[in-house]
């Protein structure tokens, strides 16, 4: 496990933190980590405590479970309750609240809801149940969308007629743009998402430095990756540079995964607009099944209610997702809203900022002390 130690080395962490502190000097910096996986690492390892106070990390909208609006969950439940339907979903989505409860409750009422590990498992359910119609609840950013794309291609190759996809895939660039346009927040730069970037590569982020003048560093998921990426952002700023850099070079290629991008282009098209929980409607921010694959599109097959439902009033997920407030600043955090009984989506997924803070926040100091942090 020598390799692991390299990424956990307290001396390396200390050296990075010192260098970050020197680079930051007396100025204040606010960096957004876009990806929920990063949020998880940051809270898990108490990285906020390692950084000098002048360097603040704010959490972004990159948790696909967190950004699904209530109306889409209601549609999912409606689909699950149609006669003859087997509704398949990732486990993460089972507890996401719609306006009339969640999918676990729909299952308890008799709907055939099954959780699957992979969209290909959902396709297998369809092959095994030729007299039923199997719907797959597709969610996720560009990390997950290619797997749905391959599944659509495979469904066609196998001539499956009892399978469709309720497509809720979203794309990473439009929400970043929405956040950059938001007057609420003054960011100094971004930690770019790791696994989304294995698919999309670095090019889609160029507008961040070129149009908005903010640096971006695509980051890995180890604690030292996060620290190294913060360091790279500060170094850019101090050098007077502003560009997209790749810290996660051991996994992310600059061009991304061209096979995945090609398959996505074949099987999906952009929606004119899509609602994001807490962020509202964002144009061209989500994918729908391409007309060439219309026979596998649940939205074309079923006459879904498609009713827009406002977010619960007490819930401040929108502000959390935009990084305007920290999870614990929400009025219902840890009281009415907990991972067991979530009101907002950020409390549902382990990558949601609220759940990550709820689960690990209290361990911050202990971990930070182990790594030999400041005072």
């Amino acid at each position, binding site marked *: 496990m020598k390799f692991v130690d390299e*990424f956990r080395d307290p001396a390396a962490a200390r050296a990075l933190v010192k260098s970050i502190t020197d680079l930051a000097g007396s100025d204040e910096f606010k960096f957004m980590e876009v990806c929920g996986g990063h949020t998880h690492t940051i809270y898990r390892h108490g990285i906020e405590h390692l950084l000098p106070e002048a360097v603040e990390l704010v959490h972004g909208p990159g948790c696909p479970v967190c950004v699904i609006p209530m109306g889409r969950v209601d549609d999912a439940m409606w689909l699950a309750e149609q006669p003859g339907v087997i509704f398949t979903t990732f486990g993460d989505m089972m507890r996401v609240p719609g306006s009339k409860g969640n999918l676990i409750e729909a299952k308890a009422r008799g709907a055939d809801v099954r959780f699957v590990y992979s*969209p290909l498992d959902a396709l297998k359910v369809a092959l095994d149940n030729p007299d039923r119609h199997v719907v797959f609840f597709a969610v996720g950013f560009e990390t997950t969308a290619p797997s749905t794309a391959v599944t659509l291609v495979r469904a066609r190759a196998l001539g499956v007629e009892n399978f469709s996809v309720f497509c809720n895939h979203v794309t990473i660039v439009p929400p970043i743009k929405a956040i950059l346009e938001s007057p609420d927040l003054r960011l100094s730069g971004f930690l770019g998402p790791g696994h*989304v970037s294995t698919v999309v590569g670095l090019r889609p982020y160029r507008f961040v430095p070129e149009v908005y003048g903010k640096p971006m560093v695509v980051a890995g998921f180890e604690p030292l990756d996060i620290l190294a990426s913060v360091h790279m952002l500060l170094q850019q700023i101090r050098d007077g540079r502003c560009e997209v850099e790749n810290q996660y070079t051991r996994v992310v290629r600059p061009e991304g*995964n061209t*096979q995945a991008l090609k*398959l996505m282009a074949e099987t999906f098209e952009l929606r004119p607009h899509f609602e994001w929980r807490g962020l509202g409607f964002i144009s061209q921010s989500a994918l729908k099944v391409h007309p060439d694959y219309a026979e596998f599109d649940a939205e074309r097959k079923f006459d879904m209610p498609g009713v827009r439902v406002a977010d619960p009033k007490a819930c401040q997920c929108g502000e959390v997702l935009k990084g305007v407030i920290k999870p614990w600043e929400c009025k219902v955090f840890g009281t009415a809203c907990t991972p067991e009984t979530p009101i907002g989506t950020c409390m549902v997924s382990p990558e949601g900022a609220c759940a990550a803070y709820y689960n690990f926040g209290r361990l911050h100091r202990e971990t930070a002390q182990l790594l030999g942090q400041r005072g």
Partner: protein
Amino acid sequence: MCLGIPGQVVEIVDAEQSLAKVDVNGVRRNISVRLLADDNLQVGDWVLVHVGFAMAKIDEHEAAVTLDQVQKMGENYQQEIDAFIDSEIA
């Protein structure tokens, strides 16, 4: 949700259908390697597995680091592994 778990390719099951068997921490299951069609995947290679798909070829170094990282996620890792075990990709 965007969790990627390292697995080692132990068998190319069906090259035409892009199916390979990977070993994730002792558990062997079929996954799709369609997204790595350009990578000339061989038995012994390490890949990052996400929802039943190899999404990137990684080296052994990265695999060890990532495996350690996801195992430290405790319950979330266990859920991912349990789901992987239940996976029945044909």
